[in-house]
């Protein structure tokens, strides 16, 4: 790895959780990737917004419930999470329906702040355009 290289990473999350493993295995990449000190952003759009919906409980289907793991992202210094408004609208969802993903801001006396920004489809396009690497799963 070239020392000191910092790239704009964008993880593009477009798939629903549970029905397939892509969301879970994508989250595993994000967690491992946190150690590499890149500029990391997560984008949730289309059915990907369902990944961070509140109140998921997989007991009945017997699979691993990885939803709580998103809460740990703030501790990994991953706090730039972009959720597309149009995708929420289409599914009848609002920001209040999403998990309250937060981080502690070390530049502001460790105040707890929201990691989530709701963005338009146009802003999402800008985000993709300004990224150095896009991870798609």
């Amino acid at each position, binding site marked *: 790895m070239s020392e000191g290289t910092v790239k704009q990473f964008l993880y593009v999350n477009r798939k*629903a*959780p*549970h*029905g397939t493993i892509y969301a879970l295995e994508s989250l595993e990449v994000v967690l491992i990737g946190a150690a590499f000190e890149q500029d990391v952003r997560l984008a949730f759009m*289309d059915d990907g917004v369902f990944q961070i*919906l509140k*109140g998921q*409980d997989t*007991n009945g289907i017997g699979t691993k419930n990885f939803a709580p793991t998103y809460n740990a992202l703030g501790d990994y210094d991953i706090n730039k999470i972009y959720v597309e408004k149009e995708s929420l609208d289409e*599914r009848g969802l609002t920001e209040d329906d999403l998990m309250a993903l937060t981080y502690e801001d070390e530049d502001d006396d460790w105040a707890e702040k929201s990691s989530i920004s709701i963005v338009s489809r146009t802003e999402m396009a800008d985000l993709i355009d300004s990224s150095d690497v896009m991870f798609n799963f």
Partner: protein
Amino acid sequence: MAILHTVNKSPFDKNSLERAIGTAKEGSSVLLLEDGVYGAISGASSSAMVEDAMKTVKVYALGADVDARGIKGRVIDGIELVDYAAFVKLAAEHSQVQSWL
């Protein structure tokens, strides 16, 4: 006896639900499971299609899949939540099962 149509895909991602509903004859049933349960959400772009279908077709959703996805409080009124035993019962009581993969 009528057909039990099963749908396991999100209506926002694929056309399976639309297709199942378009083919399900009056008196038959549609069971949503796996990511198909997202089709049970009220207030979404897919809801009108489902509510319209419910005039002629009975719609069920697998409760375990609804819970997994955190959408229990959003399910359209009139969609019946069932467990795996009831899924088996539905499969037995209908003439056949058509899986819209």
